[in-house]
């Protein structure tokens, strides 16, 4: 699909990249290696895939409360995703990008889509997550 989807903005910024889509939840700590920016949980369907500079799409966060530490480290290492798209709000996922914006002056938008739009997203397409306008723009 392509087009413009309205989204709920949890933290603003504009991120552009290829969609990396999973319908499994992600624990940043214990699931993502911040040095390499890859999913390192062998049980995860995105195992060994890089999240760096991707628009990372997953339903909701899970697991460890260390998620903001991992996200801030991803930002510092330059291995962070370009944007995060969820179906459900998870404060733990929003915190890292907010601290990153205040401390490292780098913005990674985190947005939520409603279920019908969320399930339309397909891996491999390019997208812009525009946290200023509240839109996810999908390119054909």
């Amino acid at each position: 699909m392509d087009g413009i989807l309205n989204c709920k903005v949890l933290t603003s910024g504009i991120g552009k990249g290829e969609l990396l889509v999973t319908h499994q939840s992600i624990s940043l700590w214990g699931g993502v290696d911040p040095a390499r920016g890859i999913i390192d949980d062998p049980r995860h369907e995105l195992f060994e895939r890089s999240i760096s500079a991707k628009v990372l799409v997953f339903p909701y966060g899970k697991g460890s409360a260390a998620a903001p530490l991992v996200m801030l480290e991803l930002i510092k290492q330059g291995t962070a995703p370009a944007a995060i798209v969820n179906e459900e709000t998870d404060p733990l996922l929003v915190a890292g990008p907010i601290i990153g914006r205040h401390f490292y002056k780098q913005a990674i938008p985190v947005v939520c889509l409603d279920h019908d739009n969320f399930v339309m997203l397909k891996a491999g397409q390019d997208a812009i997550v525009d946290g200023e306008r509240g839109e996810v723009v999908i390119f054909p």
Partner: protein
Amino acid sequence: MYLTDQEKKMLDGKAGEAVRLAMSILVDLGQGIGAAEMVAIEHVHTDSGFYVGDAGLEFVEHLAALGGKVRVPTSMNNTTYDIERCRSYGVPSALAGKIRRLEKAHLAMEATPAWTCAPYQDGILPKSGSMVAWSESNAIVFANSVLGARTNRTGDLVDICCALTGRAPKTGLYLNENRLADIHVTFDNMPAEAFGDARFYPLLGYAIGKQCGNRVVAISGIPKDVSMDHLKGLGAAAASSGATALFHIVGVTPEAPTLEACLNEEQPTRDLRLSPKDIHQTSAVLCTAENDQLDWVGLGCPHFSRDEFNELVACIHGRKVHTDIEATVFTSRKIRRWADTAGVIEQLTQAGFQVYSDGCLLTYPQFINRSGTMMTNSAKAANYIYSQSGYLAAYGSIRECVESAISGKIMRERPSWMGF
């Protein structure tokens, strides 16, 4: 977002630059997640002293350099390694130095050096109904569920911002309406022996976390005499496989005197019936060990309690760990001091167990053995040690872990209540 005059002053920098930065982050977070206002909190348990890289260290050193001081009593969660003893298990001096810098920054901000992921075992027990801001997923679920205190899954670094301001965005589990369960867990043909078996509770927690995600659950059918260690294991596992932050056990936990009291009747609730087969399947997912070969027995995730130490010593019964096996226990400083005074450390050391404090079982093998097979009584550890470091894991009771450590190979018995 509504802010009181005092909160506006914090945001404007009138309480100093550290408070301004902390409050700015909390206000942005509150607006992002839809908080109408802040809640004044009484206590913080912070995981900002955990090292995963230099970013977190830079952030807390920055807050400390700006003169930040905690505004409410604040206890430290475990850090990554045993602060005193980590060089003995191969942590390089440069990295140990970074842990010391985290310690220094937090002490400068006047946090309490509890260094434990189980503060509730150290007498840190917020009252039922009190508003707190805790980090560490197992501590969060314990505070909400077992103590009846109120905290969201606060998150590392957000927690120290809460400590410096005494505030947290008032959303989620601070609000009455979000503390009601929308999933009711019951048991299908579960034999009574299951409820007396310590192995059952972490597996139950893991199954609940996996199937219920971030929902609040009510569990019926658990006996009233369920122990603190059972509840610790249940919560820790549920918070690692899902995002469980609050469970109610009908007739046991403070907000669940009855099912009606803790179930959300405003909307349809889901029933989840768990059978011995479901628990068996969970066990199969957690056990990644391929055969009976064993390298390491790791206990204390969450940190070992006094009761668990007593059980461990009783199970060892004067025997010694096999020379090929590494055996380690992690606990808090306070409980390690108790164990030292009680002669427990001496007995364990003679048996071949090393007892560490301050740090995390899961990061223990990073510099000594980067692969192999471990055995633990923690479903949380069995889950993360595999996902994080590729270590294969077997899950069993403390007694099974001891028998395995002594014989040098994995010794497990399938519980009779699991069927087959």
